[in-house]
């Protein structure tokens, strides 16, 4: 633990240091690989958590709260910048380089496919399959009904299945 702070933000630096990386990775998936936007979203999220830290730290589960804020900040951003296409065609995802290990071309394909989904579908997919949230938790984060989450999830998977084709073949488990 770091030194105690006397300004009511005790524990915040440790929390931010521990969670920033995960929030950033979540944001990268939400943005379909737009790392600059992902950084901006995480900064905004951490800023909002900072402002409310006193209450959040008392209530518990600040990590869950931060993830909820991130999702809502992302959706609010998309509403402000919504366009007919989910991804401007000239913007390509920033993919971690070969030194990140694994299959870089596959990651590019996956991020491309994610970027093609409507923002809310993307948020559902990230919450369900990256954050391992239940349908109900996802619905609560997104301020919607679980029925709507269910429908979005099924549609998003159908679309991803079509977009990704055989690209995920190597992840097959017997």
């Amino acid at each position, binding site marked *: 633990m770091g030194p105690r702070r006397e300004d009511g933000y005790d524990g915040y630096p440790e929390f931010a*240091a521990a969670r920033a990386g995960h929030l950033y990775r979540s944001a990268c998936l939400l943005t379909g690989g737009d790392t600059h936007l992902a950084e901006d979203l995480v900064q905004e999220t951490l800023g909002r958590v900072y402002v409310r830290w006193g209450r959040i730290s008392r209530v518990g589960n600040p990590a869950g*709260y931060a993830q909820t804020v991130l999702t809502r900040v992302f959706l609010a951003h998309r509403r402000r910048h919504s366009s007919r296409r989910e991804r401007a065609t000239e913007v390509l995802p920033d993919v971690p380089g070969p030194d990140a290990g694994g299959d870089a071309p596959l*990651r590019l394909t996956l991020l491309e496919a994610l970027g093609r989904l409507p923002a809310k579908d993307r948020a559902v*997919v990230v919450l369900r399959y990256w954050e391992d949230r239940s349908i109900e938790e996802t619905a609560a984060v997104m*301020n919607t009904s679980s029925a709507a989450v269910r429908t979005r999830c099924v549609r998003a998977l*159908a679309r991803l299945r079509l977009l990704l*084709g055989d690209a995920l073949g190597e992840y097959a488990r017997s």
Partner: protein
Amino acid sequence: MPSADHDPFEERFAGALRETGTAFATDQQELVARGETRGRRLRLRRRAAVAGGVTAVVLVGLGGALVLPGGQDGGGRHRSVADGPSGRATSAAPGTAAPGSSVSSVSGDELVRTLEKLLPKGHFSDAHGRGTDDSPFAQVVYDDGRGKAAVAVSLNRVPAGSQEAVQTTQCPDKVYIAYDSCTSGKLSDGSALMVLKGYEYPNKRSGTKLWTAELVTPTGEHVSVQEWNAAAEKDAPVTREHPPLSATQLKTLVSAPEWRAAVGAVPVDPRMTAVPSATPTHHGSVPATLARLVPRGLEIVSRSQSDDYEFGYVVVDDGRGASLVQINVQRDMRDVENQLFGAGTRTLPDGTKVVRRKQSGEKGIAGIVMWTVDTIRPDGRRVVISAFNSGAQNTPATRQAPALTMKQLETIATDPKWLKLG
């Protein structure tokens, strides 16, 4: 895994998503420092706003102004600005709560009590809820004497008149969701209502039924009621043949004025009241173009309803059973061309690359196959089309092979009409 259905694609996708997400890295120290700086600025602005005696806080973030009522910061919390007694949401007439109205917040306990009051006589247990400050809902286990059943109500707002508002109360495509019946229509006050009798699991596994009623008022208040024929949504045995409330009772419950008054206390995002932007000018949608390209002799049984500019489907029947055909059109996919068009790729005289794939058995559904033709034009426009030997992805095979041959699928995918879209 989130789903117990063991869909192989779902598992592969989750694995690939984890690997992709994990690979991202950045300078965390800088990120943390900038986050705290932003927080300090935010705090200063909030203090300034409070000192100025205003009830709305203006936040500037992400390049746009964001005005939220009652000191809400977008993180889902809300402080009521009402002067009246706190707790009860009685200051808004049913269905008339205007955006930004100063209705007192309603607690989760109050929502639970309202739900219990509105349900027919019975025994209640395992009640829990969350108030209108953050994603309000109420859920109880209700027993009318014929078996325990979970019943839940959730409240939120959708942008009035938006596509989301319309879709919420539109019966979903059976291509995606299995259900027994669905009705949708308008109430006398202009609210849209949908009552759907469906299942908890897409493949009807375990017999858990999920019946829902969705109501959206003309001003965007959204009330959602769900009921199951089990005491919990998942991992609980079926206790009765059907959920306890009939379609008529669901309609009565979802349209109760108490809920609309409570939605009035849900924080308003002023952006949601914006008039939806007009549909962009186009040379036709993907579903409409696909429908025009279906070969003669095939009857179109159904098609996707939305005017999507990238995705669409039709269900066709050649007299030997239904066959789902999906298509996706994307621009400038040259960056992933090598990934998608590897072994087995042919190049047509005009430079279009084509690859054909036959896949089988996803989702553990008996005998289902998916035939795909993937194409990419020299300008990077990708058209990928798939056909199933079933009218939906979630129902067993109804025929040996899809209703279209690979050659027919390729003819559709390479048609010049796709170049005229958008």
